[in-house]
């Protein structure tokens, strides 16, 4: 048999195998795409996101700090996302409700109560999940104060706007990170309604979607709290 003939036989076999492999690839892609959706994402992809979360939580440390920037890099903050900021809101009657289903403890705090906690200022970069980012000067009190007060032993924190229209979940490690603040001032000014007056979350360990505006309730719990954007296809953890 000549080598040319041997090549023809090899080619036929190899191209057949390659064709089957290519079909297998296209088939796998199609299979993945058409799986039952788990909160807006095919379930196998959701499982991978959860695995990525496990790895990220292993590596996470309160000593891994977000870089801080000089004041000169601060820019007027962009207003993005109005969910949960309904018009019929009376800021004068607002209080922060803190609930724990681990200890069945309940607190109600006024803005002055929160302002009496140690005041922390930081100039960090806010990362929107859309891909833009901005350096912002945040002022507020560490969320860890509340965890020590009402949420010790809880594994998660859920937060919700007063109208319940927007809600986020945080793992407790992210909640007690020293750069996670209950924020009442942005760039040296009181929060505007669009930025979540009177109190919002500011944390560079999460995407902007977790930096909830106008917090109404803080809920310490051992079960994973629901999350507005996680229910719409995003990663629940959304950690940076």
């Amino acid at each position, binding site marked *: 048999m000549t080598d040319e003939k*041997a090549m023809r036989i090899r080619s036929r076999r190899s191209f057949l195998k390659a064709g089957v492999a290519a079909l297998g690839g296209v088939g796998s892609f199609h299979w993945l795409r058409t799986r039952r959706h788990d909160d807006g994402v095919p379930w196998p992809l959701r499982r991978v996101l959860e695995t990525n979360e496990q790895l990220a939580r292993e590596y996470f440390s309160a000593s891994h700090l977000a870089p801080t920037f000089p004041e000169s890099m601060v820019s007027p903050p962009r207003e993005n996302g109005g969910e949960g900021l309904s018009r019929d809101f009376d800021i004068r009657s607002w209080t922060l409700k803190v609930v724990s289903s681990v200890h069945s403890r309940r607190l109600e705090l006024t803005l002055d109560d929160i302002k009496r906690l140690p005041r922390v200022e930081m100039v960090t970069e806010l990362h929107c999940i859309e891909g833009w980012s901005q350096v912002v000067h945040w002022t507020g009190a560490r969320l860890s104060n509340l965890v020590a007060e009402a949420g010790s032993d809880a594994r998660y924190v859920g937060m919700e706007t007063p109208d319940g229209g927007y809600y986020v979940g945080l793992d407790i490690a992210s909640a007690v990170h020293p750069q996670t603040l209950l924020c009442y001032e942005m760039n040296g000014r009181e929060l505007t309604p669009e930025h979540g007056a009177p109190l919002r979350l500011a944390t560079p360990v999460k995407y902007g979607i977790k930096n909830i505006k106008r917090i109404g309730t803080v809920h310490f719990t051992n079960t994973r709290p629901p999350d507005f954007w996680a229910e719409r296809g995003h990663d629940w953890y959304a950690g940076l």
Partner: protein
Amino acid sequence: MKKLQSRHALAIRCFHWINFAVLAVMIWSGLLIYWANDVYRIGIGRFTLFKFFPESFYSTFNIGFRLAEGMSWHFTFMWLFAINGFLYISYTIFSRDWRYGGIQQFAYLTIIFMGAGSLLTGLAVYKPTQLAWLTSLLGGYQFARFEHFWLTVGYALFFCVHIVQVTRAGWNNFRSMITGYELVEVEKPSGD
């Protein structure tokens, strides 16, 4: 007279084609993500020669409003891209499969560094707080994102050049990336 000669090991062929498919998924899902903040262009000052990307591009390939979906695919297939890429390069080094010369070797070395660059800039954008040292090293969050994007444009250009070269090299060469073998012209034995 033509003689059968082995050219690419089975492992190399697998890594090559897996990389092709995985990179395609990475670029597609990357576009779904990029759409949500499509800020890059070629231009100077107010003059824009080309915007990445025109509306027609998004509508043709159905790119818009799929950010969450894009992220879930991107952060799944990143593992395959990294693992396959690592095996591809390791095997190439171990098997000393470096039979190319000059410019071609330079091109392939470049693409390896680009692959590593995509992983590093990707990590810098993925975890800019936990890996703040890396993000800072690469010039900050927005610059890392910018690098990540242009590396991808680099792949697209590499792909075009690669296709032209493969076309010019002919069928025998292309076939060797499927079969592993090529036919080479040898002189007839003397006295025949």
